[in-house]
């Protein structure tokens, strides 16, 4: 049960001391030392579903794209149609290789133009931050008319999520709360912030991009307003209940967005890197698809568990946990495409025990509003 790991060389976010003060258990994650939990995963999960929680997501990377061809460039790199968002908008997309394999999933915010120049900010996974920027930079060199920069060190990021999140933010904010999938500049607890109405929990809320030096003031103000600190453990159970994919588990360079059920974020009528393969796959249908499932009896699925159907191995679990809200084992698995239909009965081999599961619709957890 040795859970300790060497903390040497791990990066700290500006909120590190605040986490320790709040009683966090810190763990290594993607090169950072991050809070996995404070009071407990289940309490933090429930706080986000019923009230409001705050996650330090300062480990995530930010890439700035600007220049006369900035929009064209992102249209070329990203799977979604960037033309659909105006300044103040936000959009989810995949970053693909030529063969359609997923390099990352990310959110792009279209900022207001400065000096007549288009500006975008793309928030990427911590684990891919360096390789994403390298990909952006190399592509930008050959594309021309665009300047990309890794601005990760210029931002701390706090995700405030839950049914009470927006009301609490409104109390601390000078400025307007933006609409869903929009962002706006404002001041939160005296700190200039880019307030983004996005998140990774299935709840309403905001993500705040602030200068690193202002992060503690924002954090303290949120906690004083009753927001519960929540760690990576709850972040994972929350996203899995609503079937948001996690890069490294459900997404990888060996999988395409079509297989992952993310065709909705791929504008196949545009000309982005990897589109040919995705068009072909969308037309023919992929051999395997990512299927969300629920255990119908006891047990907890875990990544890498084999998926069986009529005694035959038909896939592999990529994410699994106990759902704190539903109190059953839930997960996602890549399975033979004909078995990815909701209602299909599967068996998951959990360390030698055969556990019955049923493919379900997304989201697995639906509060019904």
């Amino acid at each position: 049960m040795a859970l300790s790991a060497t903390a040497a060389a791990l990066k700290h976010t500006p909120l590190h001391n605040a986490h320790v003060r709040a009683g966090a258990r810190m763990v290594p994650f993607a090169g950072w030392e991050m809070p996995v939990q404070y009071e407990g995963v289940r309490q933090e999960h429930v706080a986000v579903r019923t009230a409001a929680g705050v996650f330090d997501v300062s480990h995530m990377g930010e890439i700035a794209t600007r220049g006369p061809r900035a929009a064209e460039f992102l249209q070329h790199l990203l799977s979604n149609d960037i033309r659909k968002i105006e300044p103040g908008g936000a959009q989810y997309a995949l970053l693909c290789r030529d063969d359609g394999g997923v390099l990352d999933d990310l959110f792009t915010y279209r900022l207001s133009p400065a000096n007549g120049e288009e500006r975008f900010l793309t928030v990427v996974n911590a684990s891919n931050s360096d390789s994403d920027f390298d990909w952006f930079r190399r592509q930008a060199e050959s594309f021309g008319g665009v300047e990309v920069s890794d601005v990760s060190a210029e931002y701390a990021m706090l995700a405030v999520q839950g049914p009470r999140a927006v009301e609490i933010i409104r109390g601390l904010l000078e400025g307007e709360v933006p609409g869903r999938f929009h962002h706006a500049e404002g001041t939160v607890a005296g700190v200039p912030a880019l307030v983004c109405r996005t998140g990774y929990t299935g709840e309403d809320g905001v993500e705040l991009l602030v200068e690193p030096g202002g992060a503690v003031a924002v954090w303290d103000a949120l906690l004083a307003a009753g927001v519960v600190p929540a760690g990576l453990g709850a972040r994972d159970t929350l996203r899995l209940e609503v079937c948001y994919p996690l890069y490294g588990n459900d997404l990888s360079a060996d999988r395409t967005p079509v297989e992952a059920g993310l065709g909705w974020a791929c504008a196949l009528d545009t000309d982005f890197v990897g589109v040919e393969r995705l068009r072909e796959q969308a037309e023919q249908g992929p051999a395997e698809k990512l299927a969300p499932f629920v255990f119908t009896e006891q047990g907890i699925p875990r990544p890498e568990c084999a998926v069986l159907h009529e005694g035959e191995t038909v896939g592999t679990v990529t994410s699994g946990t106990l759902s704190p809200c539903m109190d059953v084992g839930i997960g996602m698995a890549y399975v033979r495409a004909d078995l990815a239909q909701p209602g299909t009965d599967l068996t998951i081999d959990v360390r030698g025990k055969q556990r019955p599961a049923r493919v379900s619709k997304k989201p697995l957890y639906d509060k019904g509003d």
Partner: protein
Amino acid sequence: MADNYPDDLLYHPEHDWVRIEDGEGTFGITWYAQDALGEVVFYDPPEVGAGVTKDQSYAEVESVKAVSDVIAPLSGEVTAVNEAVSETPELVNEDPYTAGWLVKVKLSDPGEAEQLLSAQAYEDLLSAED
């Protein structure tokens, strides 16, 4: 709740305890083990009648994030499992030494107990690991 290691138990270095009474052992995991694991959300007990072997896994306890093998401190045959923990796994966190016991075992070789640690020796081991 602070860490605690009752003096009337014997300890296995893999963070398990046993209470021996009349040739029967009651097994569980230590305060340290439940704290490291976090909130226990699933306990899949062995069958009554199953054999358990000292130093080998006889069950699993799971938190939301992790699975942990539970190691038998002594050998024998399972005579009872704690159904209350299957129903309410967080008993392991709330009360690891009484309500949170995992199995009772008819010991096949009570002499094995000589290899286990006293509370003091186990606590020394924990401080050495830190």
